[in-house]
């Protein structure tokens, strides 16, 4: 690997932008086919290691929350063991966290359910504000304990309240300046984002840091990024038990894969 970032590194840093592929200039094509067969390269994965977005306290919240949303149990590892916190950390540090593709111009106002997300907060800001707000709420209610310090039952109760939109997400602390004018979104908005992201981290390709050892895929029997199922089309009703394959292959094929 050379020291410079390859196209795929950038792509995998978060949401993919084809436009950073070195082709962001307007171009003209005529009189010939412009492609070169076979130049595509395989992607490289998210590296384990230090948090890139979450603070330690935030990571503790996310670890605890996703462990309740998809728990480890008799069926196998849950979201926490699958690395969903790492997944989320990298996603929120990247273009998705910054809502780079979203329309983020005002004026801002609450809409109907059918008008969708209307918060001024990007996903990264939403997590920052919501976690702070929920932990503060927990400290008040449970004699100084944060969400992560509560019992599983207590956590489930809080998560249910968040899901139902019963908690108001206040934009508290220093961040309030950055989101001045924003109406605090209701907690159900945050819950929907958190659950969707947890499912993403549990079931996406392992290169993004979640679905570690393909535990999500193994749980349900999804064989992953296999490319050719023609031999199986006619095998009606058969349990195929195909070992899952990711974009970088299977763990057994590649020692470096985390």
């Amino acid at each position: 690997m050379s020291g410079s970032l390859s196209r795929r590194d950038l792509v995998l840093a978060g949401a993919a932008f084809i436009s950073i592929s070195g082709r962001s200039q307007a171009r003209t094509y005529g009189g010939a086919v412009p492609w070169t067969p076979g130049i595509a390269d395989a992607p490289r994965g998210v590296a384990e290691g230090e948090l890139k977005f979450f603070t330690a306290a935030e990571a503790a919240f996310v670890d605890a929350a996703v462990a309740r949303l998809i728990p480890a149990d008799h069926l196998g590892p849950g979201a926490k063991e699958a690395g969903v916190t790492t997944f989320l950390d990298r996603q929120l540090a990247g273009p998705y966290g910054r809502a780079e593709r979203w329309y983020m111009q005002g004026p801002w106002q609450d809409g109907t359910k059918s008008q969708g997300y209307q918060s001024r907060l990007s996903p990264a800001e939403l997590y920052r504000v919501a976690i702070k707000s929920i932990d503060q709420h927990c400290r008040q209610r449970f004699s100084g304990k944060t969400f992560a310090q509560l019992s599983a039952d207590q956590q489930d109760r809080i998560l249910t309240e968040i899901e139902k939109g019963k908690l108001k997400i206040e934009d508290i602390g220093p961040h309030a300046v950055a989101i001045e004018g924003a109406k605090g979104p209701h907690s159900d908005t945050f819950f929907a984002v958190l659950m969707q992201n947890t499912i993403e981290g549990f079931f996406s390709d392992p290169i993004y840091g979640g679905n570690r050892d393909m535990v999500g895929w193994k749980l349900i029997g999804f064989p992953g990024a296999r490319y050719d199922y023609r031999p199986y089309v006619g095998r009606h009703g058969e349990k195929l038990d195909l070992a899952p394959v990711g974009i970088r292959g299977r763990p057994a094929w590649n020692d470096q894969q985390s």
Partner: protein
Amino acid sequence: MAKKLPAVDVALVGFGWTAAIVAEELTAAGLDVLALERGAWRDTPTDFAVTFAQDELRYMWRRSLFQEPARQTLTFRNSMDQTALPMRHLGSFLPATGVGGAGIHWNGQNWRFLPTDFVARSHNEARYGTLPESMTVQDWGVTYDELEPYYDKFEYLCGISGKAGNIKGRIQDGGNPFEGPRARDYPNPPLDMVYGPTLFAAAARETGHKPFPCPAANMSRAYTNPLGVTLAPCSYCGFCEKFGCGNYSKSSPQTTILPVLMRRNNFELRTQCEVLRVNCDSSGKRATSVTYIDTEGREFEQPAEMIFLCAFAQHNVHLLLLSGIGKPYDPKSGEGVVGRNYAYQIVSSVDVFFDDKIINPFVGAGGLGVGIDEYNGDNFDHGGLGFIGGGYLACWNTHGRPIELHPTPKGTPKWGSKWKEAVARNYLTTATISTHGAVMSYRTNYLDLDPTYRDAHGRPLLRLTFDFGDNEHRMSDYLTDRAAEIAKAMKPREIHAKKRNGHYSVVPYQTTHNTGGAAMGTDPRTSFVNRYLQSWDVPNLFVMGSSVFPQNAGYNPTGTIGALTYAAVDAVKNIYLKNPGPMVQA
């Protein structure tokens, strides 16, 4: 100041499905054609290689092939008394950006509309009496029989896999007996069928229906199309809709037209050039040029003899409104045509849960499924039902991508151990029956310019005012009930019927089958283009794509879009080029 460029014969705005067809046909006729595409170049080996194409997070959930709302979106409200707010990220529909347009990431469910769909007003009124005053449903000004050769042409371009149900009026066993008569069978046999649709077919037959393999733009075998471009057999990879095909097996501009078109010296493509408006001369009756902007913010004026809007449904309408071409629709007076008759699709589904039957959803392809057409269009008597129109039911086996697909029975908690257990238990053993219904057009469903919100260039966003009508809800409920009956006949452990309740919402993905806003028709007071997709007001301006549908039918649109495009280009070659001017007298 925009730099003025040398004129071309034909300028195409956008370079997706319709533009590729127009470009191929008109360059073959000897014209100089220029396509302006706002997105980047895309090709199979570079952009959809099988070493990374199968990435659910990147393509579906991070939307990396789709339009960026930061650059272009619309505002939305259900009714005129609400304030429209911006669609801040994509949801209900996923418009494309980049060479090939949505042709890259469609499913390839490729249908013809019914003969009666093209005469929706006159046919329904003759059979059921006057339509409600609120409906602006109208005839298309073109008939199925007139379009048949062009449907055929698009199907042979694409290499559609399917089984004919009606060849020249003779009903064919195993095909769709309700389809309009076709000249010949599909170019390729149906895809091989997987288990779920096979169980659906048996139950449908048992309950008195005539199931057939759905027509698919996924190759059931290697196929060389009339342009000499070869496609490879589909590998049932299950990463089809929302993804590019790494296998040259899904029909797209890239796999059917571009290898020929890109080599022609009278064709030029400029990518990452976004058209801002169409300019007319002082009479307003002749389009002279388009203005576009490149990624460095430089503006250019590109003169052309003919201009084709090929920018996809709502973008065509947005450009017309921004260019001040045609009379904008006013829902209060009912006058004006640009933005009138916006429609969509109404969909619902029934999950069918088995204990003992392994469905293996991941062995899938975009158009792989079995359908029935008994409840589409006017294939059944609507007497006493309280609605017109209908849709098809199908058991598709398109994919098993788990972020999107993890069905759970009714009453399952939305998270926690019980949710996890239900997902694990049902993933391999659930089939789904979908209903795909028509949406009629109404006085109060329309497109105009938003008074408040602006796009990246500071221009007003398009504003969408839309909701499903009672007609749509009754129709969709009726389809869902029929689907549930067949689901029960599949003898599952349980079913979960998911009706489409309440207001239309931009949040969950439904379909990218947006239609209308520049309707075709026979009367310039109620349509923007004539039957040849030529503007009544500006005869050297043409509008391609589903913007011209006066209302939507119960099928996916692209077969009909392809047919209308070929029909329009034929008229340009045979009528317009000999005598440029209106091809239909108003």
